[in-house]
Every structure is written in C-alpha cells, then in structure tokens.
C-alpha cells in the first residue's frame, strides 16, 4: 500500500543511523551525555516499533502490508522496505532487548572503550534494516552493517580473550559473507531478480535447469544464514564468542542469532512454501535434521559446561536448534507456538547473560574482573564506581532472578518457557507423528532435562556454597534491565491468550505468500505534481 504510513518504515533505519553519526561527534569525556542520547534514541525506537506493530496489526491498514519504495522506484527495479506483523514483532523484540542491554551497560561497560554508543546504534540500524528489507542484496548490506558493528562491540574493552574470540568470529562471518554473495549471484543468474516478492513469483515457473541453479543458490545462501543462527556444524564459533564478549554485547549477540532464524523463516516460507510448485518444501529435510543435531549438540554442551557464559551459549544453541527443526517440520500450526518460544527464549537467555555477570561478583566482590581491561584505557578508578544507586537485598534479588531465568530456559511451569514448550508439544501431538516429530519431541525433553541439571548445578554452586561475608554491590541500573526482561516474560505467561492470538496473525503473514507478492509487486510509485 502506498500511504503516508509506509513512510514510517524508513525511520527505524534512519533514526539509529543519525544518532550513531551524532554520537561520533560527542567527545568520549561526556559519557553521560552520550549515554542519554543513546538511550533516548533507543527508547524512541521502541515506541516506533510498537507503533509499527499496532499499525500493521490494526484496522488502519486492514489486511495490507506497508511497502516503502526507496527513491520511488517500483518493485522489482528499486529496493523496497516491507513492513508486516512479523517484521514489526522482530523490531519490537530488538528494541526491547537493546534498551535493557544499554541500561545495563550504563554503570560500567559503556565506559570501557571508545565509541560503544555509536557501534550500538549502528548494530541496531543493521538489525532493523535486515528485518525490514525486501531485497536480497539490500539484506546483504544490512547484514554487513550489523556484523561490522558486532565485530567492534565484541572487541569492546578488549583483552586477550576477546581478541582471540574476535579473530575467529570475524573470520567465520567473513567466510559466511562470501557464501552470501555467492548465493546472491547464483539466485540472480537463475531468476534474474533479487526482490523477495519477485523471486517468489518467479520460482514456480522456472525451467528445470534454472530451478537447479536456484536451489543451489538458495542452499548456499542458507549456509550464510545458518552460520549466523548457529546450526550444528556451522555454529562452533558461538560458545567462544558469547562467553568472551561483555555481557550487554552478548545480550545483543543472542538477538543476532535470531535474526538469522528470521531470514530463514521468511525466505523459506516465501520461496519454498506451498505455492512454490515443484520447489515446495525445498531444504526442509536439511533444516529439520540440522535443527535436531543442533538441539542434541546444545543439550550435550549444556551438560558439559560449568562456566555461566557457556551455559548461556549452549542455551542459545538449543533455542536455535528448536526453532530450525520446527521450521524444517514445515507444519503451519506450530508457527505461532514457535514464535512464542522464540520470544520467550531470547528474552530469558539475554536476561541470564546479564545476570551471570552480577552473580560472578559474589566470588569477586571487588572489580577485579574489569581490572585487566581497565588498564588499557587508564580510566580513573574512583570514577568507575560513581554511577548509579546501589540496591538493597542483592543476594535475594540475584537468587530469585536466577530461579526465574532457569525456569524459563528449562521450560518448567509456571513461567513463559513452559507455555512455549507446552504449546509446541501440543501442536506436534495434534498432527500425525512422523519420525522427525518423534525425534524433536524426545530431544526437546532431553534438552529440558540437561538445562535443569546444568542450571541447578550452577545455582547450587553460586548461591548455596558461596561463603561471602557481604553480599555484592548491585547498581539499580544493573538490576532493573534484568527485572524488566523477566517481567516481560512473566507478563507473556499471564497474557498468553492475547499474545497467542497476535502470534497467530503474525504466522498468517508468513503463510499468505500470495498476499505478500501481490502487494509488494503492485505498489505503485507516488506521482508528484500534476497528474497527466
């Protein structure tokens, strides 16, 4: 639809870009100012994302998508931005997590090096762009923006561990980008278009030779996306990277893997959905078995890990594996349950990542964790302790927050993790069970069990055998983002009904491919001035 409303699709990309550029100009000494600007912009982004979700879901657009034609060129010749419920949902998730991670970074992490705030905004720009774009090459560009910012953030406050992890992370992603480009080239050679909707229109009518080329291209593209979403043989970079990065950055990296899943989800349904002729269901078997193997790998890794960073990493691997296997199963009914699981697991793992840094302070009440990094930047010692109000009853808070995180991650009642897992199992059991369904069912239980064992072991070691004389000092700005994330998870459990209804509509967006194709292709350019 061409309406003034579709112009707002540019804002989630422009706002972080401009804020990021503005923040370069502010000197690092004005940390407070930079932080406030950054947080304001991110808050505005959250408001914008919520508004977009309401607009795309509400009666204002009816059953229409928002389509923005860049430079007023119609699809497939120009680049389009497409806003539907699914994209808006991911925008909301990204903005929510970003706000929490940023708030957490306020008291110390953001001051650890230069240009944290700029990189943070550019990361958001990349994420939002990748979610909104409707063009394959544009997706590549936004992925690169997102990854370049994530390289910088991973190395933020650099020490030897981060450099080592960074070397591997950057090489893996550069090679993934090479595959991305190869895939784009093959898809273009096969179909002669790069627009998602145009490709979806062309795929059912391809000649056999071209179809083979298209499938090769799609498979190579999948290598790139599945590397990001850490499918089993491609995901070895994840645990090292996650446990090396600073906690607020790791929380954002947890989101990045979900962006990989988002792209797989969108393209899989659009290109190889039921309407794709003889290409329908291409790659689903690979996704299913890859997902199952990832799930098994995550469950084993989780059992073996003692270090909280690794526990969080393998939980993220498990969540990716579950999502990919569910996409591979290709059952339309499980889609909304899958999205529920995606939201709940992303928020819980992010909260856990933030929480682990605070739990580690039980052992090291002083700031020795940071001492190594701080030397590089010669920050004054006393300045570092200044920001924020210390909260009371720190131990009680840590214990309760940990219990809540663990319940959600393991999928135990009464929180959102249980509802997510239960509805997945419920939907699986409703349809006739194949081999894949049974394998997924069993692996989900095993993964849940290993999460319980691993988290309980960690909890017992941290809280029951911790012999500290004084409880750790926690700032309000560090505790509140965790509390906020957990509150969102709790309200997801309470408002499961309305949320599921919303997610059903989101899933509908994915299933109605013809609507997406028609509306993107038929959006007409805005004529300006006198009409002829």
């Amino acid at each position, binding site marked *: 639809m061409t309406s003034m409303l579709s112009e707002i699709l540019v804002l989630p990309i422009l706002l972080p870009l401009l804020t990021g550029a503005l923040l370069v100009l502010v000197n690092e000494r004005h940390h407070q100012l930079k932080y406030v600007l950054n947080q304001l912009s991110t808050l505005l982004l959250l408001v914008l994302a919520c508004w977009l979700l309401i607009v795309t879901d509400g009666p204002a657009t009816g059953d229409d998508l928002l389509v923005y034609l860049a430079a007023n060129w119609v699809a497939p010749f120009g680049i389009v931005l497409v806003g539907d419920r699914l994209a808006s949902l991911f925008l909301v998730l990204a903005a929510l997590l970003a706000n929490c991670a940023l708030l957490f970074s306020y008291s110390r992490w953001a001051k650890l090096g230069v240009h944290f705030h700029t990189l943070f905004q550019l990361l958001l720009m990349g994420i939002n762009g990748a979610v909104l774009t409707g063009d394959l090459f544009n997706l590549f560009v936004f992925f690169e923006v997102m990854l*370049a910012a994530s390289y910088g953030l991973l190395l933020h406050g*650099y020490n030897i561990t981060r450099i080592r992890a960074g070397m591997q992370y950057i090489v893996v992603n550069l090679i993934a980008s090479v595959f991305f480009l190869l895939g784009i080239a*093959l898809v273009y050679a096969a179909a002669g278009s790069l627009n998602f909707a145009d490709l979806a229109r062309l795929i059912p009518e391809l000649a056999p030779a071209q179809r083979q080329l298209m499938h090769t291209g799609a498979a190579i593209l999948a290598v790139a996306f599945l590397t990001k979403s850490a499918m089993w043989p491609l995901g070895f970079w994840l645990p090292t990277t996650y446990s090396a990065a600073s906690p607020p950055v790791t929380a954002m990296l947890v989101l990045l893997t979900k962006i990989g899943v988002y792209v797989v989800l969108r393209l899989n349904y659009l290109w190889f959905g039921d309407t794709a002729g003889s290409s329908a269901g291409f790659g689903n078997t690979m996704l299913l078995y890859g997902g199952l193997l990832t799930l098994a790998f995550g469950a084993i890794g989780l059992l073996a890990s003692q270090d909280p960073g690794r526990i969080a990493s393998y939980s993220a691997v498990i969540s990716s594996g579950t999502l990919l296997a569910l996409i591979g199963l290709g059952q339309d009914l499980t889609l909304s349950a899958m999205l529920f699981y995606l939201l709940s697991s992303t928020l819980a793992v992010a909260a856990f990542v933030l929480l682990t840094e605070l739990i580690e302070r039980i052992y090291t009440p002083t700031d020795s964790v940071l001492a190594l990094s701080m030397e590089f930047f010669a920050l004054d010692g006393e300045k570092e302790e200044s920001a924020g109000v210390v909260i009371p009853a720190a131990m009680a808070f840590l214990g309760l927050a940990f219990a809540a995180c663990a319940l959600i991650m393991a999928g135990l009642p009464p929180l959102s993790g249980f509802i997510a897992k239960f509805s997945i199992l419920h939907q699986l059991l409703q349809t006739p069970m194949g081999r894949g369904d049974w394998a997924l069912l069993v692996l989900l239980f095993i993964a849940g069990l290993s999460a319980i064992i691993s988290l309980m072991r960690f909890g017992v070691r941290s809280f029951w055998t911790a012999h500290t004389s004084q409880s750790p000092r926690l700032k309000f700005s560090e505790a509140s983002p965790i509390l906020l994330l957990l509150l969102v998870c709790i309200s997801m459990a309470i408002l499961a009904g309305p949320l599921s209804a919303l997610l059903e509509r989101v899933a509908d967006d994915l299933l109605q491919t013809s609507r997406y194709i028609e509306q993107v292709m038929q959006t007409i350019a805005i004529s300006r001035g006198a009409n002829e």
Partner: protein
Amino acid sequence: MEIILALAIGILFASGVWLVLRPRSFQVITGLLLLSYAVNLFIFITGRISVNKPPLTLDETALDPALYADPLPQALVLTAIVIGFATTALYLVVLLGSRGLTGTDHVDGKEKETDE
C-alpha cells in the same frame, strides 16, 4: 572465454580455501582476499560475458536489450568490493592487535607444542 574465466575463479577460490585453513593469521587474511576476488569475479559474470557492450544508454528510442550488458551485477560487484575491502581492513586491525597482545601470529592466539 568461459573456460578461462571459470578456471581463474576456481583456482582463486581453491587457493583461498586452502589459505583460510592455514594456522597463521596472515595466511588467513590472504586467503580471505583471494576468496573475495573469486566471488567478485563470479558475481560479475552472472551478468553473462559480453564484450564491448555498454551497461547504460541515454537513447530512449532504440532499446534492444541484446545490445547492452546487464548493469545490475556491475553495481552489485562494486558494493561487494567496497564492503569486502572494509571488513578485511577491519580484520587486519584485529590481526595486528592479536599479534601485539599474544606475541604470536597463530589464529588460536597461542602456539601449539607440536606445530610445524
């Protein structure tokens, strides 16, 4: 022409893969460069090989597509070159940082005892 181009891309790509799997970070970055050259060439020839054909025209009357080269891969390849260049430069900085901090150019940041 096709065979020469295909061979060139294949050799570049294979050398790149071999170098990326080597243990020294300098070899890895050289490998990455070769890989991106191969991919850039590959994108370029997806617009089909043509000699002496302009990608654009200002003439609005005679529009026979057979007379013109496909401009899209050319635009894509320019973007890909710029992005590849920037990310490789970024990796170079990390490489130097790692060399300075760990004192070795091994990609793991430490020497193995039984290394070559």
